[in-house]
């Protein structure tokens, strides 16, 4: 073979180095096995770093009545009864220990007056439950795990872009990657593989997500025959920045409301009193996001197309202490002093509840040696995610994915990877180098605009069908995308590779949204405004034998009788 391809062998390969990937790698290291972790960004820069509010865990430090059963009930209700109840149980039970473990690794949480881990209120959590570090909890989490990774025998390759999983028979033999800084090709051979690549938020124009959240894990898994679930469920965070344009979509943490911030329209009305008299600003994210959306679209929005979020009634000292990052963010990006002025906010794409279908206890996909954890996986959050549950999710299920992958790797061997499989990948990458190729960023721009315009916070059949057509058109045009120059650190090439994955997510999101003819959780259909009991189902997406995307529905597995007491019964109009 003409190309120089480096081969790396390991017991477990972890793709992605956010919270879930790093926690999984730590588990494999704890099990005494060899682990290689790869990430497309630099170590410690993953999207986890953007998490602000906290980690939901029923420690009961502030509200002693809290326990796993209450957390369980909150998850099921917020997920509007299509969550995997086993995952909700596992999260409720194990999150406290993962938080305490993080503290032993060195994370330094805010404290209660008597010295225990402080917990704050958050939307739709029954009790004050979020362990936090001011409004920078994600940074603390990722730096703490990064320290563990650096001080353990964990090999990592950062700025390593994985193009595809290498499937041999019905198993994953490893993955093919490009080391961005050198342009070298790598083949990773592993007995078991964990995907922890995060979500696809960047398929939308207005999003709080980092550059890297292009759904690469979704794309590579789908192409390898992995089943996806709940892809239509996209969470819109009620409060993203709207101005200046360069930071449109950037997250304004829910902690602002948790700490007492109120929402006002341009008439100065506190409209949440109307939409949600009980929970007000702290109702579930879908409820608040839709309220904000409604106020804006009905003409009661602000100059830049948002609503006001106001925390000025708290003292400047309190705001700077509790929300230091938000204070800086508005001051530096928008020139707004939030201790004196109101913030302008609007809904922004924040999280993908759907993703790879996994078994609750093991995080195993429908491929026996492929596991997934974190935002790329699905099941826990159902139709909507509670704030603070994603950080809990990545720790709890990141660990479990690492444990399961280790157990699998211990009793299996490396698979041989046929040369033609590797050649195929090399040709795939090289195929993007062409004269007069279409600029991938033009296509990405059209794709993300299409998603925001047609598959947004409020959907209907007409717009969804329009989106289906645009996506089909872009799939055709994708065949002509290309770039110039060399493989090394070429964003044009990355744009092409990412676009392939973004198209998979978009197709799945849009088709599933069209299929689900009801409104449930984050999925709102104007043409089907009510929840429908016939839709207490999950939509599964996979690649059919003809290479086309297939969909099927499966009923939600009922929870055991004795757990029903923890959850309010589901009501249909």
């Amino acid at each position, binding site marked *: 073979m003409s190309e120089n391809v480096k081969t790396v062998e390991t017991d477990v390969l972890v793709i992605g180095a956010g919270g879930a990937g790093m926690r999984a790698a730590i588990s494999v290291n704890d099990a005494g096995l060899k682990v290689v972790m790869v990430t497309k*960004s*630099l*170590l*410690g*820069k993953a999207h986890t*770093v*953007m998490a602000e509010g906290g980690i939901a865990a029923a420690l009961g430090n502030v509200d002693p009545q809290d326990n796993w059963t209450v957390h369980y009930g909150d998850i099921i209700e917020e997920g509007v009864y299509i969550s995997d109840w086993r995952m909700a149980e596992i999260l409720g039970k194990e999150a406290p220990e993962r938080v*305490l473990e993080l503290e*032993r*690794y*060195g994370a*330094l*949480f*805010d*404290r*209660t*007056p008597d*010295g*225990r881990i*402080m917990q704050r209120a958050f939307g739709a959590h029954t009790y004050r439950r979020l362990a936090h*570090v*001011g409004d*920078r909890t*994600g*940074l*603390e989490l990722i*730096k703490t795990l990064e*320290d*563990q990774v*650096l*001080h353990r025998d964990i090999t990592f390759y950062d700025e390593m872009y994985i193009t595809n999983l290498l499937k041999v028979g019905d198993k994953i033999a490893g993955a093919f990657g490009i080391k961005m*800084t050198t342009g070298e090709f790598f083949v990773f051979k592993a007995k078991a593989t964990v995907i922890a690549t995060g979500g696809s938020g960047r398929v939308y124009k207005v999003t709080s997500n*980092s*550059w*890297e959240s292009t759904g690469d894990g979704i794309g590579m898994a789908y192409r390898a025959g992995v089943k996806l679930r709940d892809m239509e469920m996209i969470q819109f965070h009620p409060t993203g920045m709207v101005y*200046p*344009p*360069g*930071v449109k979509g*950037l*997250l304004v943490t829910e902690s602002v409301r948790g700490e007492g911030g109120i929402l006002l329209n341009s008439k100065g009305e506190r409209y949440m009193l109307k939409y949600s008299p009980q929970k007000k600003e702290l109702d579930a994210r879908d409820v608040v996001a839709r309220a904000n959306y409604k106020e804006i679209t009905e003409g009661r929005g602000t100059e830049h197309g948002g609503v006001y979020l106001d925390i000025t009634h708290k003292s400047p000292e309190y705001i700077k202490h509790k929300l230091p*990052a938000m204070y800086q*963010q508005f001051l*530096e*990006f*928008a020139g707004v002093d939030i201790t004196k002025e109101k913030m302008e906010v609007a809904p922004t794409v924040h999280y993908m509840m759907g993703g790879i279908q996994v078994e609750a206890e093991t995080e195993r996909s429908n491929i026996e040696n492929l596991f997934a954890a974190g935002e790329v996986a699905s099941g826990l959050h159902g139709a909507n995610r509670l704030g603070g549950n994603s950080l809990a999710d990545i720790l709890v299920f990141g660990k479990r994915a690492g444990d399961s992958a280790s157990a699998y790797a211990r009793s299996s061997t490396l698979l041989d990877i046929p040369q033609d499989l590797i050649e195929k990948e090399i040709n795939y990458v090289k195929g993007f180098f062409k004269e007069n190729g279409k*600029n*991938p*960023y033009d296509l990405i*721009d059209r794709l993300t605009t299409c998603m925001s315009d047609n598959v947004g916070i409020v959907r209907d059949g007409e717009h969804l069908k329009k989106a289906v057509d645009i996506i089909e058109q872009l799939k055709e045009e994708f065949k002509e995308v290309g*770039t*110039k*120059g*060399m493989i*090394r*650190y*070429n*964003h*044009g090439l990355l*744009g092409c590779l990412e676009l392939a994955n973004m198209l998979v997510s978009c197709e799945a999101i849009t088709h599933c949204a069209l299929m689900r003819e009801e409104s449930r959780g984050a999925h709102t259909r104007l043409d089907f405004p009510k929840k429908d009991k016939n839709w207490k189902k999950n939509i599964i997406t996979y690649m059919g034998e003809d290479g086309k995307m297939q969909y099927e529905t499966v009923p939600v597995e009922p929870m055991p009788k004795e757990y029903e007491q923890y959850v309010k019964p589901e009501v249909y109009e």
Partner: protein
Amino acid sequence: MSEDINIKIFRFDPENDKEPKFQDYKVPYVDGMVVLDAVRYVEEKIDPTISIRWNCKAGKCGSCSAEINGHPSLMCKTRVDNIGKNITVSPMAAFPLVKDLVTDISKNWEIARKIPLLTPREGLEKPWRINPKDVERSKEFKRCIECFLCMDVCHVVREHFTPYFGPRHIVKAASWDMHPLDGLDRSKMLNDEGGMGYCNITKCCTEVCPEHIKITDNAIIQEKERAVDRKYDPIAMVIKNRRKKEKVM
């Protein structure tokens, strides 16, 4: 300020180019735009082969470090209306160049591995109790997003071949040393292995820190004082000598 901005971007591929150059680009100005917006415009609309590194575009991840008009800064946090419409962007000079604006910052991982992690004192009851006030001191250092601008601006790191770990790593060590439950003192190793003595407290690192960490005053000077106290503390010397004698006896 509605007209185009003129941006000069450093272009160099050490493997193929003979010498570096600054290339001029014109980018339309958008209200409130930051330098990263302009550089991304060049990448997406003019030349996708330009190598840049960015991720969160929110000042939280520390990926887009560069020298803007010679000043080490995050591209995502530098507003064009604050610096004018003639902008020059070059890579961090303290790290080996990969290509264009991208540098190899991996030596930081080697240094990070040398600094012992949190080592809790023995006999602590679990779960730990920590006074809310005691959390504050270490918290300042935990704001670090590892943009490595402090390393870039540090003339010791940049111009001299010394063993000095550099400001980011003193901050990391200080975050553990000032952790309320930590039982180690890292000042000696910072001084011996970490070459902390080479720092002559010019405070350049503090000036460029996008997280406004008082690196020199609160981390480096504190660690230097500890190291000196350890070395020359007369009471400690007496105790040390007595222990030595006891051992001999």
